[in-house]
Every structure is written in structure tokens, then in C-alpha cells.
């Protein structure tokens, strides 16, 4: 089992990701939520780092230590009301960054807001471990597997 790591961007205590694939940064302002999510990903063999503070998470991503952020919605940071928007506005510098909203906010308006903020995907809590793993793998890229090849209706 891959252990999750408490990440911090504080000076003098810089998070060093383990060798191998970049960890998934799990951001949630509810400690129980972040522990559950990180635990499920760790059980799936996905290295994770966790953070509850939007500004610290922003620092980790800007240091290019993370390429996939799995975050609750409406996590504030000093640059605005939502971490997602702050992250996505840096696409020129972080072109490979992907953001998945894993959220307890499940109204249609929340979905629309997440998409407008730039999320690459949205998954409502609570999701099964399998569903969570699938969406993370899709965005993480290296292990993404299309279940079947494309079929075009117009082909003979």
C-alpha cells in the first residue's frame, strides 16, 4: 500500500515527492474527507499527498510537484474564492496540470460552476473506490485505458 503524505509548502519544510509518478494532490478542508479520499487512492496504488489549505496547495502545484489535483470545490486561496480558478489560470506555465473536483456540493449549479472554473472533471461524494480510481486514472494519463477502441457510426 502506498502511504499518503502530508504535504506542505512552508519554507524549510519543503515536500519532496517520492521517486516515480507524481503524486495526486488531494485538497479538502474537511480532515475526515481528505483522509478517506487519500486512503482510497493509496489502496489503489496511487501515490498521494494531502493538503487542507488552498494557498499551500497552490504553492505545491506552482513548484511543479503535482500534475493532478483532486480538490473539493470552493477551497479559498489568497488569489480568489476558489483554488481551481487560480490553478487553471496558469495553464501557460502548467500545461499538463489537471484538476478533478471531488465534491460534496452536488447541485447542478455546483457542477456548472466547477466546469466554468476550469475543472477537467467532476465527481460527487461519496463515490465508490472504483469510480474514484477511474476518474483519477483518466486524468493522470499514464495508466488511462480506453475500454474499447473508437467506433464510428459511418464506417461499414
Amino acid at each position, binding site marked *: 500500500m502506498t502511504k499518503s503524505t502530508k504535504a506542505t509548502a512552508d519554507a524549510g519544510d519543503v515536500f519532496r515527492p517520492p521517486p516515480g509518478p507524481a503524486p495526486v494532490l488531494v485538497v479538502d478542508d474537511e480532515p475526515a474527507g481528505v483522509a478517506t479520499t487519500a486512503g482510497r487512492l493509496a489502496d489503489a496504488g496511487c501515490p498521494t499527498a494531502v493538503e487542507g489549505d488552498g494557498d499551500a496547495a497552490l504553492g505545491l502545484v506552482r513548484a511543479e510537484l503535482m500534475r493532478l489535483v483532486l480538490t473539493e470545490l470552493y477551497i479559498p486561496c489568497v488569489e480568489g474564492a476558489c483554488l*481551481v*480558478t487560480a*490553478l*487553471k*489560470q*496558469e*495553464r501557460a506555465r502548467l500545461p499538463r*496540470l*489537471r484538476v478533478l473536483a471531488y465534491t460534496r456540493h*452536488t447541485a447542478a449549479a455546483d*457542477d456548472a460552476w*466547477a*466546469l*466554468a*472554473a*476550469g*475543472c*477537467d*472533471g*467532476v*465527481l*460527487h461524494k461519496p*463515490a465508490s473506490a472504483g*469510480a474514484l480510481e477511474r*476518474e483519477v486514472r*483518466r*486524468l493522470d*494519463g499514464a495508466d*488511462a*485505458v*480506453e*475500454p*474499447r*477502441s*473508437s*467506433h*464510428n*457510426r*459511418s464506417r461499414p
Partner: protein
Amino acid sequence: MTGDRPPRVTPRTDSEPPGAALRRVPRADETPDSSVHYVDGEWVHWSVVEVDATAVPGAVGARCLVFARDGCIRRVWDYPADWRTYDDAGLAALSWRR
């Protein structure tokens, strides 16, 4: 288990693609952006729509596809122009792209 799968609502012919009976027929006054519906290999119903993304922070292109099922949304930037011609299996595969 395939034995647990629900029966199809409407019998289909061999020439009909899977899920075609569940696909909504667009009205004449609908725009090209209207959503397409399909069923994936696990019998989950999805809708997919092409949307304008010019105002989205970090947009990779001017437009993107948004796949949605109950509790899950996928945004796909990399897709072919003729995605509307894809059958259910093709759309399901497309939803795995980024």
C-alpha cells in the same frame, strides 16, 4: 455479470447500433450543440454535449465535449470533429480522453 443486466426497453434490429433506441431524436429546431445520449458498456446512461470554452480558465481549445452521468462529469478537449457520428462504444471510448 451479464445476467444482471437489465433488459433493453426496445428490441433492436441487427443493423441498429447498440443504444440507438435510447438515443433522443433531435428536433428540427434544435441547435447543433444539443446533447447526444448513449449507454456505455456497463449500462450507464451518459449525455455528451459540445460547448463553448473560450471563457474557461486554462482552456485548451475554443470548444470541448462535456460527458455527464449521474454524479460524474468528464471534460474532453481532444476529440474528432465527427464525434456525433460515433456509436455508443465510440462515445464511451472518447469519454476517456482528456
